[in-house]
């Protein structure tokens, strides 16, 4: 249900650690970009999985859980993308 938000959390702390350990380097930008792509991929997968679970579930609680999971993955997708943008700053 909270997979998407967990992806966002892992992505955020990973890029923070990268930026702190390799401050001001191109390596930090490259690693951040890769981590962002990985985060977006994970969110995309979760979104696809949750959409499938919503279709498959005919039961109220299961459907609701899948709906929250899908929305969580969607908002995380946007957040991870947004969070990765600072690498393009000069």
């Amino acid at each position: 249900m909270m997979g998407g938000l967990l992806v966002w959390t892992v992505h955020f702390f990973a890029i923070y650690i990268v930026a702190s350990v390799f401050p001001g380097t191109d390596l930090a930008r490259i690693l951040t970009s890769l981590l962002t792509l990985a985060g977006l991929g994970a969110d995309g997968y979760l979104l696809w999985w949750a959409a499938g679970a919503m279709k498959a579930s005919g039961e109220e609680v299961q459907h609701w859980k899948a709906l929250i999971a899908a929305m969580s993955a969607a908002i995380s997708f946007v957040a991870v993308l947004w969070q990765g943008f600072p690498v393009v700053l000069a």
Partner: protein
Amino acid sequence: MSSETGFDPTLYARFPTKEDRPEGELEELERVWKAPTGWSRLTAVNNNYVGVWYIGTAFLFFLLAGVLALVMRVQLALPLVGILPQETYNQFFTMHGTVMMFLFAVPAVEAIGILLLPQMLAARDLPFPRLSAYAFWAYFVGGLCFFASLFVGLAPNGGWFMYPPLTSMAYSPGINADFWLLGIGFIEISAIAGAIEIIVGVLRTRAPGMSLDKMPIFAWGMLVFAVMIVIAFPAIILGTLLLELERALNWPFFDPTRGGDPLLWQHLFWFFGHPEVYIIFLPAAALVSTMIPALARTPLIGHNLIVLAFLATGFISFGVWSHHMFTTGMPRLSVGFFSAASMAVSVPAGIQVFSWIATLAAGKPRYNTPTLFVVGGLVTFVIGGLTGVMVAMVPFDWQAHDTHFIVAHLHYVLIGGMVFPMLAAFYFWMGMTSRRALSERLGKWTFWLMFAGMQITFLPMHLTGFMGMPRRVYTYLPGRSWEITNMISTVGAFIIAAGVAVLLFDLARKFRFTVKHDAGNVYGGGTLEWLPTGLYSVRSIPVVRSRYPVWDDPELGDDVQQGRYFLPGAPTGHRETIITSPVRAEPQYLQIMPGPTVWSLFAAVFTAGFFLLLTVQAYTPAIVSGVLAIMAMIRWLWETDRPVAMDEVDVGGGICLPTYVTGSHTHGWWAMIILLVVVGMIFLMTVFSYLYLYVIHPQFWSPPPDALWLAPLLLGYGGAAALAVLARRLLGREKTTLWTPPTLMGIAALALLVSVLLEFRSWVDAGLNPQLSGQGATVYAFMSLQALLTGVTVLMTVYLAARNSRGLVVRPRNNTFDLITIFIIYTAAQGIVGTLLTRLFPGAL
């Protein structure tokens, strides 16, 4: 329909039952739940009492901190006013911020949770009523003593965030800072106790059928709030401990000349401090989301989106702490990440605001006091949110940092996001706890005075900040164009005070505490707290079939009152509630709840005594008080975890539930796991501190002890965990004597103790001195934490032995035994991780 626990949901169709209830059942229920009278009332643990005391105390602190604000505003009304000397002004603004944040805002929302949640979930009470009482009394006694420091000139004076080096011994040599460090650390313990209670309460004591999708939005808000406390507060607990250790023992965590770093404090403080804002806002937002459907007379639009917004806020708010540190010179990329996250966190807040507006637009809102406070709060919060997005932008933040612009921004957020919603809640739920509702006429006066006063005070303050007036200055010179806006702000502050005075007058006139003969559902709420209640909460616990059960089933109140649902009496003759599963709320077992006790009160008083006596450096009385606190806690626990005569009871409709269960689905197990998450977070923050100091000042690092030390240490910790697991298994074997498992547990605790002593010895032999370097300080902090947990373990095993000697440890499983086993395993695991980290990093690199 699928099941979570094997419970057959079709059994819900038996309710409401048709047959009459036996005679005397209600009287027995009332007898069991009766509150003490006279002075003994102080021993009450019912949420109805504790919740109201809690809210009353929080409101008292709101008034006290408000008075401080008024005096400060008079001081700043004109240049060179001499009402407050500089030192006293420093104490005033420190206490104003500290009291509002720590003694009003968090306790107030926690208190509302304790008061409302059991009724809203249709539980008899929250699962650990004595813990609630302890949390309240600790907060009450500790808070008042903390505030009293102001009257003897010993109040903290380093600002509510107490940055070192200003608060180090060199620049704050008195005990003022210690009052803050020990006082706040102690109040956090009270907050965490409340949070554990709320998490377990929301997830495990909901009415049958109240699955997560039907859970009231307020319960969602309180759940996320409590989880955030569990994650965030350990950072400040560790921070206050480290700073106190630096001040008391000269361990240089924050001293850059010896390998410490003052920015470490800022990281620890703000990792707690920014989520704290959302910790305050989320429950208030949840109150608004609960009130708006009733006030607008239509279901909440975007219920699921608001749940998602709560969850998203809970996560994202932990990624914004460094936006308070934009001016400290962090790496540019990091600054970019925190700026982005700070803007992103406004998205979930925006979702909620749009949902509220849509609900108000779709419904038929009435012109009454709670609606005014809700709408006024919304407008004020949105203004504060927009200036928040402004300061999330780094170049703007550099200009506005530490000016009155920030003071204006934070007051817009906190008053709009928390104070106004809380006042709306005051009016909305007053009918639940008072014989008479508050006056609508006076309520509107209160609102308009407070709303106008708020805007008059803080809108011009943005300009004062733009014109360059810094925060935390006790006066200013004439001719800087700050006079007019400051005078307007001061007038506004007194208008707010006038509004509060009207509210106090109204409260004095109308508020009369009651449990049974309340004014009722004045504003037409649709959730379960509006069912008829007594000290036992509802007469019978209904099956929940929708999000607004009171609206959707007009007969519900009558059926509940007639005892036609779950648990219409007290079948075991004790206080009880039904424990349900976390997702679908299926009935699992009957929890036997403890009743009134003086021991949680004593435990709280002595805990407060321990911290306060420590602050004034009365070490022997402090130790005595600490020992008495522990004894009182043990005494209160002694009466818990006892099986009752009946293994199973009929809880209504012919459904039978067990009265004693063990293992991972018990409420005690959940509480222990949450407690260990708190301890784990403190440990994790210590790891962060260790790595941070190494990254900043590697030149102060010295080699670790010889690697050979690892063998006995890992053996000791690993052996302790293995012994605990073995003891747990042996308890279930009939052939084993009952003394063998507790003895093995004792040996396990001993193994932990020996390991800690060996660890200490090895570092001493390696020549590491905690006073000489940041490495020494953090390594000794690790060992101190481990020693503390080991001490608790030893105490637990002695307690276990004592219970065993009284025949209270039963086969094949016993909750006390299970929980101590988990604690020992955790302590051993933490010892292993700490040992490996401090010896292999950077030693093995």
